């Protein structure tokens, strides 16, 4: 992984390189294990995401003074965004062609669903239509708030607000089902 750093930071001073190498030692392993799942086990892609995440962490190093739980939540969120951006770029579907409105909750023929996938799908179905809809039209389809707002014909602020209450409600249901802490 450090080979990538040499390329990225040819002009950066040794101090910065040293600091980023430290971040790798502290967070690189756990981040890589976490990210691999969302890159479909694409190890090269996952390593690139870890690298970009830690470079951003270094650029915002004041946040590394936070308590460990908050640092971890922040790093995971930074990494998730990088994965989503990458998936949008890699998407083989042309963005301007609207995909058929497949039911993201439907189980594809012949596909095996893990137990937690079934629990999460049930939890999502238990939400109100308004809450479920914004979660489906944003995160589950890799769309931004603005894109979802346009598709749903509601203001972006409404999408954000419904997402807030919807995600909080979803977490409560998942906690009751014992899959969230």
């Amino acid at each position, binding site marked *: 992984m450090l080979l990538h750093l040499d390329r990225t930071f040819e002009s950066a001073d040794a101090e910065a390189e040293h600091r980023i190498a430290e971040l790798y030692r502290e967070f690189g392993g756990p981040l890589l294990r976490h990210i691999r799942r*969302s890159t479909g086990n694409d190890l090269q892609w996952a390593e690139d995401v870890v690298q970009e995440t830690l470079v951003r962490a270094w650029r915002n190093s004041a*946040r590394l003074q936070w308590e460990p*739980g908050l640092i971890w*939540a922040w790093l995971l969120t930074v990494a998730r965004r990088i994965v*989503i951006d990458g998936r949008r770029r890699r998407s083989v579907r042309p963005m301007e062609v609207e995909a058929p409105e497949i039911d993201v909750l439907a189980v594809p023929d012949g596909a095996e669903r893990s137990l937690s*996938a079934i629990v999460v799908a049930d939890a*999502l179905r238990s939400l109100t239509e308004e809450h479920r809809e914004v979660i489906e039209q944003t995160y589950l389809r890799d769309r931004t708030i603005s894109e979802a707002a346009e598709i749903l014909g509601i203001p972006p602020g409404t999408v*954000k*607000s419904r997402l807030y209450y919807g995600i909080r409600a979803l977490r409560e249901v998942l906690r009751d089902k014992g899959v969230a802490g």
Partner: protein
Amino acid sequence: MHEEVAAYVLGVLDEDENEAFERHLDTCTACQAELKRLVEVPDLLDELKHLPSASEDDRSR
């Protein structure tokens, strides 16, 4: 601004909104606590995404 924490944790804010929210996060302890509570939700939602994996190769026809 507080309500954007959900869109932030899901990674669905536009780039400038994302940066603005992170600056808010720097000083808002309520959103910091909420971020920690919500951070596992997108991981659980990933169970529903049809992520590319070896086991799903046979889905293309």
